[in-house]
């Protein structure tokens, strides 16, 4: 075979293998994202035929809108809450199930992951029943310990109702990150621990001086991953459980985007919120990369 035709064949092969995927990706992923940036510059009800170009008007409005600010606050509350809650519990389980030599460790590991295979919609519906003030699980349970029937509206506090969305979010997230950290721990050579053991280091010492530094990379990935999935996806559970209410106290950026687009007919504004989410998640990623890298250096 001549090298020229071989080269052409190679290129042809590359083309046929790269292009279909790329075209597909462009149509269904890139194009909508670019369009979103474009729509964000218009005042448009979505239903109407005419859009009015308003430049950065939507973004200006956004920062004057108290609900947007609250939504950002709620989003970051969930980010911080989930990072703290999930990382502590997931790390504890990961260590307990690998280093502590419990019986049934494999069994626990298997069942702890179960919430992660259940759809968020299902989780939202279930937790709605837990929080239901009259026929809910939580109030019925608390009523066992009180004389009067407990009738707390768990999803209806004057403020901080967003706190109530943290337990389902953490509950649903633990298993995934536990598996990640377990995998990282299992990559640590046993000899490290054996050496520490010989030096008389207890479990806590081993955890701090071996486990944490060596799985730090994985933890960093986990933390950034929690941040991103929260900013991008927390609205599903919000929408299913509270629709952002009462009085917008559980609104997150995603749910407000949905509300604005499909409930209040401001598609342009909604697209601008989408751009805001993108911007914030990029910025936060960079900031976190910085912060967490710094810490790695300190620890090692």
């Amino acid at each position, binding site marked *: 075979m001549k090298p020229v035709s071989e080269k052409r064949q190679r290129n042809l092969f590359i083309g046929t293998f790269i292009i279909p995927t790329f075209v597909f990706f462009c149509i269904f992923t890139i194009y909508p994202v670019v369009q979103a940036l474009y729509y964000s510059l218009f005042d448009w009800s979505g*239903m109407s035929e005419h859009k009015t170009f308003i430049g950065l008007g939507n973004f200006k409005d956004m920062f004057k809108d108290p609900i947007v600010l609250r939504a950002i606050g709620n989003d970051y509350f969930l980010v911080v809450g989930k990072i703290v809650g999930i990382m502590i519990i997931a790390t504890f389980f990961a260590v307990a199930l690998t280093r502590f030599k419990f019986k049934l460790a494999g069994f626990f590991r298997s069942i702890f992951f179960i919430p992660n295979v259940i759809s968020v919609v299902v989780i939202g519906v279930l937790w709605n029943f837990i929080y239901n003030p009259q026929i809910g699980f939580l109030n019925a349970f608390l009523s066992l310990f009180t004389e009067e029937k407990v009738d707390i509206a768990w*999803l209806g506090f004057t403020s901080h109702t967003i706190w109530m969305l943290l337990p389902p979010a953490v509950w649903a997230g633990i298993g995934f990150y536990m598996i990640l950290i377990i995998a990282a721990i299992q990559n640590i050579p046993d000899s490290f621990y054996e050496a520490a053991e010989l030096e008389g280091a207890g479990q806590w010492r081993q955890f701090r001086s071996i486990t944490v530094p060596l799985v730090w990379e994985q933890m960093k990935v986990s933390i950034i991953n929690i941040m991103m999935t929260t900013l991008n996806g927390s609205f599903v559970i919000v929408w299913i459980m509270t629709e952002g209410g009462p009085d917008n106290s559980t609104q997150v950026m995603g749910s407000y985007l949905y509300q604005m687009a499909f409930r209040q007919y401001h598609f342009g504004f909604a697209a601008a919120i989408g751009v805001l989410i993108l911007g914030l998640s990029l910025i936060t990623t960079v900031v976190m990369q910085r912060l967490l890298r710094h810490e790695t250096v300190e620890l090692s």
Partner: protein
Amino acid sequence: MAVNKKAAALGLAAVVALTSLAACGKGGNDSNGAASPSASPSESATPSDSASPSASPSASGSESDGGGTKLTGDFEIQYFVGGYGDKWWKKVIADFKAANPDLNVIEAGGPKINDQNKPRWIGGNPPDFVYIDGPNLNDRQMVEDGQLEDLTDWLKDAKNVDGDKILDILAQAPQQYDGKIYNIPLVLNSWGIFWNKALFKDKGWTEPANFDEFMQVSDKIKADGITPFIHTGKYPYYINGAFLYPAIVSNNNDDYTILQKMATNDIEAYKSPAVLAALNQIVALRDKGFIDKASIQINHTDSQMLFLQNKDAFIPNGLWLPNEMAKDVPQGFDFGFIPSITQKAGGKVVANTSTATVAVAKKAKNKEAAKAFLQFIFSKAQASQWAELSGAPSNIKGDISSSNAPNFVKDAAKYLTDPNTIVIPTITFNADVDKAMQDATDALTISKITPEEWVKRVTDVVAKVKQ
């Protein structure tokens, strides 16, 4: 885009072919009638159809004798299924099909249909006929977005299948937008306050007729260990519609134009003392601890179930409630109802009506059939069938006392026709303002804000919407 257009063009070609055949078969008994069937399905893009009102009345004239105009092609009806159920729709569509065997009637109904069909409205491919009811379908917005067919001229002398002029038989006239009519009320219902007469009798409580009595009996109810008042906090338009708006009117010397001014985003109307006084009535309930704490987070069924179990004495709701909960109403439960409870002693009852309207899509492909369907449903026969099957009064005048409609429907009709009742014509607020009022009312009921803050918040939004 190209794909869509091509498909549409193909479809149109087929429709045109069919309709022109139909026109031939009919023999062109009148020129207008012959012209419009072929024009209306194919010309979804041009406004010529809506601009030819002369065609429609004559077509309707020929329609009135039953098989005059042969309707063909596809005809799609979008209807929301909520408290009124879908029995009537199934029935009327079947009847309409029977009357028009060559028409392929497509039903798009369901509790989420408003969301579900939204893409098609946006994409310019809407169903032909729409029943505007339920959440997330705002007639004002649809008009502003140019999605509904201007029915002003057509309706001027449109007659129903019985030959009655439609405008003459409507109990509540259609809402006008800058003097134009786009949608016609089909259901005339009322918001109001419910209680269980049986429970009241049992406990020796007096059924209230005004706000003072309401507060007095609530005191008693509370003392008897029952929560006086529950509402649907997750969807606060219930308490707004059944409590706040009538209260505003009562406090405005029974002049309901204040609400109409509010709907046109008149900031001064929102700042009126009547609004503040009405909000203070909610505050009075709240501060006495009459509002069930569960209210804030629960939806319709949850709140209604609690009410049906006699855990709460009063619930603001609409007259669809008994029908909606029919399956879960315990034995011996007896609905008591008053359209408003916020009036002073001796004051008039204020009924905030809740209408659900029907309209034709501007981009409908079969406007002919849509208009024929309007003529079909706005008839006495369908009106009493509606009352019977959906448990709600229809918007067609007439005595239903002898019909099979349930008693509370008859009661409601009585209230709505009583000369001593102030009947507020249905008002649709701007979606942003509506949401702001709902949120603010929720916040008010849980002591998060004061009535003054309610006004401030809402007027801020109104000001923003106005720009």
